[in-house]
């Protein structure tokens, strides 16, 4: 069809698809799924960090952490808005999340056990997210790409803050240093798995790359990320829990030791340490907030009615 041709041309030109443009159903579906998953990840991802807001060990850190978790709510808002331009409402996406039907990044099913996790999450998890997301700033769907630009800017700020937390701990007391190393040990492998399964096990990636949504393969992005953190860990004076990291001169890529993909699948299937807790908390907040949302809607409706009455009377 002409519409399909127009779409194909825009993609071929590496131009942007906008909400009013025609797009194939599969493209719309893929994007809706990806953006809403991404939004859900921001929202669920608030929880492990919110876990330390009330216990942050200095007022400065408390303020930074609050701001960070709050930013994540903001990212969720941008992303739900972007997804809404594809024709799905935030309410229905939220309903899917709460019903356990939607996915979010599996890494948030790990607990934030110590304060050092605030550092490791910022440095590794946000770091991996950025590595994933920077190319998404050029995603073919306009609202998504623009949301990513904004988000990446804030995320890199968060990553720097995470790094600073670890740096402070690594240069602190023996107990602080141990806490930092332990957190890096726990978050290293899960953060590498954030890029998704190895390329040979990731059949969906091809189509996303053809549509200019995804720009690089999982393994490519993972390798770049490894190259980045392998340098930064030196500054921290800590170690990565992987003695097989090396730079392959032949391929020009960083390589890492084997990852436990079985654990990844287990967590994805709901058998992580915190899956149940994360969903329960989200559901609780949603349910407990229902009356508030209803009140706001009822009040807005009453105000609108009053306003139009006044207009009519005038």
């Amino acid at each position, binding site marked *: 069809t002409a519409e399909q041709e127009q779409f194909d041309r825009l993609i071929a030109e590496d131009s942007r698809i906008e909400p009013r443009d025609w797009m194939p159903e599969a493209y719309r579906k893929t994007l809706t799924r990806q953006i809403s998953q991404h939004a859900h990840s921001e929202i669920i991802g608030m929880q492990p960090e919110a876990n330390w807001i009330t216990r942050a*060990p200095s007022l400065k850190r408390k303020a930074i952490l*609050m701001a960070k978790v*709050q930013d994540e709510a903001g990212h969720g*808002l941008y992303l739900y808005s972007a997804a809404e331009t594809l024709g799905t409402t935030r309410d229905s996406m939220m309903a899917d999340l709460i019903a356990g039907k939607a996915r979010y990044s599996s890494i948030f099913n790990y607990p934030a056990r110590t*304060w050092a996790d605030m550092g490791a999450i910022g440095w590794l998890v946000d770091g991996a997210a950025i590595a994933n997301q920077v190319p998404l700033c050029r995603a073919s769907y306009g609202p998504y790409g623009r949301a990513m630009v904004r988000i990446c800017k804030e995320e890199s700020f968060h990553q720097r803050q995470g790094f600073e937390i670890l740096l402070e701990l690594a240069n602190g007391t023996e107990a602080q240093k141990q806490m930092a190393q332990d957190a890096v040990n726990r978050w290293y492998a899960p953060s590498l798995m954030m890029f998704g399964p190895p390329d040979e096990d990731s059949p969906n990636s091809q189509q996303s790359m053809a549509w200019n949504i995804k720009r690089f393969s999982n393994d490519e992005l993972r390798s770049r990320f490894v190259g980045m953190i392998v340098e930064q860990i030196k500054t921290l004076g800590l170690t990565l829990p992987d003695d097989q990291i090396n730079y392959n001169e032949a391929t020009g890529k960083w390589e890492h030791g084997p990852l436990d993909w079985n654990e990844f699948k287990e967590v994805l299937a709901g058998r992580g340490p915190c899956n149940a807790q994360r969903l329960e908390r989200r559901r609780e907040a949603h349910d407990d907030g229902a009356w508030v949302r209803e009140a706001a809607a009822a009040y807005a409706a009453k105000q609108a009615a009053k306003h139009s009455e006044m207009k009519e009377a005038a």
Partner: protein
Amino acid sequence: SEAVGEYALRLGDDALILAQRLGWWISRAPELEEDVALGNIALDQIGHARSFLAYAGHAWGKTEDDLAYFRGEDEFRSCHLVEQPNGDFARTIARQLVISQYQFTLYARLMNSADDTLAAIAAKAVKEVDYHRDHARQWVLRLALGTEESRRRIVEGILLTWPYVGELFEDDDLVTGLDGVAVRPSGLRQAFDTDIESLFAEAELEVPAVPFAVGGGRNGRHSEHLGYILAEMQVLAREHPGATW
């Protein structure tokens, strides 16, 4: 001076404990917009707390963190109001209404303090608290005039909050001794009442006829809630005395 330090502690502790309470909501609010809004208010309050506590610390050679993390319960100077539990969203809003109405007029007057530092902190804070006040007032209207359930809940939230209003407006030797530097709490009462009355008139609410609870927070006599708040807030810092973060 120590008297100014004591006064700054009161202002700082109110802001700190309130921020600590509000921080709980982030990731638990009724909608994402409120995670952001309550987060903003908490952040502003923690900012004010840091300014006031850092200034108070000068009197004793202590940092903001020494004061926040290494004082015992009886050394805190917060009012009972900010120590009250979050309860449901309505109760949090009721508490927020009272504290931000109070802080707004307080800071607006403190801008004229003979103490330049207090005046400067207040000048910055008053703009932010003006937003908190507006946020709370808007929600009181929405909840009071929204649904039957929301109305029932905000009425209940106000009822549970009101016993702790009286303490805010009590003068004592410290503030009367700091004439021109501190703002007399009793002098804030009228503006508070007027603002509440106009809001409640619009919201079709009534000021509940409940007796005020005896306070004492300014002298270190706190509600039974503060001990729990501090246990959580201070646990990590105290596990690592002398550490920096």
